[in-house]
């Protein structure tokens, strides 16, 4: 499923699953599990920004933490820079930690208020016992992220939110990592400051050949920064591919619903935009719906198929995969058009042909994975 293409990926995760057991009662017996991440496979290429989008609880942060091995996966494998790190011990992980860093959402709680900026940004040098003049390097870093070297001895509370986020960025850059996971790095910032941080990240990526995994619930932000995106829903990837391709013609109805829900100014002569308002709420990840997890809310739901047969990710456009039996034919579409699902893309899956018009036609055998 992962495109093991010519430019060898920095991160590759395969069938990654993470369940958090739910315990209840004095004897703490297992009472099911929160299926936070379910069978996720993707790769992150060197020098690219992979955006992970989804609503709260879709598993995007858990996926990122699994990539960094901040959480241990229930099953599946993670390869980082050609090395399998799925079951590496913390001790063996340590040297790799300098290659992978993280920028957090809340610049107020992710900086120790009792340490100076110099100590915070210099901490990675101390932890990894790097040789050389760390003070000079910290000053360089501060300058690179748009702060002044004189800020070295100040404390975090003296800075605004945007400046604090710059400190967080400097700390992540300190050891010249290959991968930086940015977990909602601009969500807590005001709009005029968001752009400053996004521009900074873009320019750092170009200068240091960084690879970003960029997590956000904000589709506008992701569009500005990501080269490829993964859209997640209830722990699964529903759509994966080139960012421009997905934004221009989403294939999965959930992606389309997300895009159409973003409030925006309408173009006077542009196509009339239909908003796909999804009914209800995201189901509980403890007991996700059968087969396609999106089926209870999907405008293209077909009984006997979507709730029986789990769709797998398959390529619907060059560099764009979606996990849907009835992907959208084009975009934008009116709601009526969306509800009228034609079997246009199902030529490659003969057992599904005609199912759109015949709900009684349930597939006899499960589909071959991958198509």
């Amino acid at each position: 499923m992962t495109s093991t293409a010519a430019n060898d990926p920095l991160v590759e995760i395969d069938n990654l699953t993470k369940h958090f057991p739910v315990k209840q009662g004095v004897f703490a017996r297992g009472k099911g599990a929160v299926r936070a991440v379910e069978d996720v496979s993707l790769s992150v290429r060197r020098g690219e920004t992979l955006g992970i989008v989804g609503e709260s609880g879709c598993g995007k942060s858990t996926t990122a933490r699994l990539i960094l091995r901040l959480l241990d996966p229930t099953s599946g494998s993670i390869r980082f820079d050609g090395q399998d790190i799925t079951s590496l011990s913390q001790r063996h992980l340590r040297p790799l930690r300098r290659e992978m860093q993280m920028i957090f959402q809340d610049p107020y709680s992710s900086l120790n208020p009792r340490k100076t900026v110099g100590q915070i940004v210099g901490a990675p040098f101390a932890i990894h016992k790097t040789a050389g003049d760390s003070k000079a390097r910290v000053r360089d870093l501060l300058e690179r992220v748009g702060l002044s070297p004189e800020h070295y001895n100040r404390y975090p509370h003296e800075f605004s939110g945007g400046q604090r986020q710059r400190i967080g960025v400097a700390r992540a850059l300190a050891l010249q990592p290959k991968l930086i996971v940015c977990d909602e790095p601009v969500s807590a910032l005001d709009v005029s400051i968001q752009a400053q941080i996004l521009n900074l990240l873009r320019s750092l990526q170009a200068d240091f050949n960084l690879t970003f995994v960029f997590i956000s619930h904000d589709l506008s932000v992701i569009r500005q920064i990501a080269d490829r995106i993964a859209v997640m829903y209830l722990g699964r990837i529903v759509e994966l591919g080139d960012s421009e391709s997905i934004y221009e013609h989403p294939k999965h109805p959930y992606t389309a619903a997300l895009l159409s829900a973003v409030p925006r100014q309408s173009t006077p002569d542009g196509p009339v935009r239909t908003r796909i308002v999804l009914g209800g709420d995201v189901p509980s990840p403890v007991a996700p719906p059968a087969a396609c997890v999106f089926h209870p809310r999907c405008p293209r739901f077909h009984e006997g198929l979507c709730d029986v047969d789990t769709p797998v990710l398959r390529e619907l456009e060059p560099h764009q995969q979606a996990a849907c039996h009835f992907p959208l034919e084009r975009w934008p579409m009116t709601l009526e058009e969306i509800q009228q699902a034609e079997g246009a893309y199902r030529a490659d899956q003969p057992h599904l042909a005609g199912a759109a018009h015949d709900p009684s036609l349930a597939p006899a055998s499960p589909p071959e994975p991958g198509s």
Partner: protein
Amino acid sequence: MSSTSETLLQVRNLTVRFPTIDGVVQAVSDVSFTLQRGETLGIVGESGSGKSVSNLAIMGLLNRKRALITGEILFNGRELLSLPPSEMQKIRGKDIAMIFQDPFACLHPMYRVGDQIAEAATAHGIGKHDADARAVELLDRVGIPNAKSRARDYPHQFSGGMRQRAMIAMALVHNPAILIADEPTTALDVTVQAQILELIDDVKQEFDIGVILVTHDLGVVAETADSVLVMYAGRIQEYGEADSVFKAPQHPYAWGLLDSMPTVERRLAQLVPIEGSPPSLIAPPPGCAFHPRCPHRFAPCDQEVPPLVAPEGAHADSCFLPLDRKLAIGSERAARRLGLAS
């Protein structure tokens, strides 16, 4: 119901000052606007721009011992600022209702949702039995399925979107004339946000009320508001009909916001941030509060505070630039943002 152009609220020269040990915080300065029945007024601004404080002043929720408030707030012709607290209490929650950003913090975790809504009803003289019925009726109206049984749920059994719906139900208990929504969708996911904005719009039509929608998201305002008020550093920078403001914004701060906001429509070659950061409200810069960050500043900007004026053929703004220049730059920026021009 009543005619469309009935003025519900008139705010004149509202100024709010908070004296502190470090100095006087000039939270709101000289803010004037009106709200008609059936109108949605969007107030846009970043944190610290005074948008929430203005609304708290309208609701009479500022501690008058700590806050110095001057100006006038006329609700249906009645001056609210000079009302004694007991009179204000009769208006607050009855004629003017408010919903807040965080529906998680607004509901008491240990009382049933229906009871909390009923409590809001009894607070202004509805009997207990009727209040319970009203709570269920409203929960149903705001789109809670099985309203009768869900009314017996506790807040933790509701999702974020449902809690905000419950808050809206609570606000509607007494058929208010004005609904103030302070960042009602900021804490919610985008698909839920769409549902809530739609609900607020429905409710506005059905109950024929005026809505003040406070947000930092220009997209939300563009989609829902009839008129827009842009605030910065406690002052109104731009005020006009939404169509006009979005077609040709006239204030450099509004241009800055448009240029810096990421858009879902296109990947922009470059986001143009507003350099610097918002000023301290204890010692705001002299003259126009935006001038230190403004690329268009010229001679008078650091001397005089530009007044909010509405020139012929344009909406109101407070900027010294000549009007033809503002209109030219503004319409060019708006077009560029929509991808109509490069």
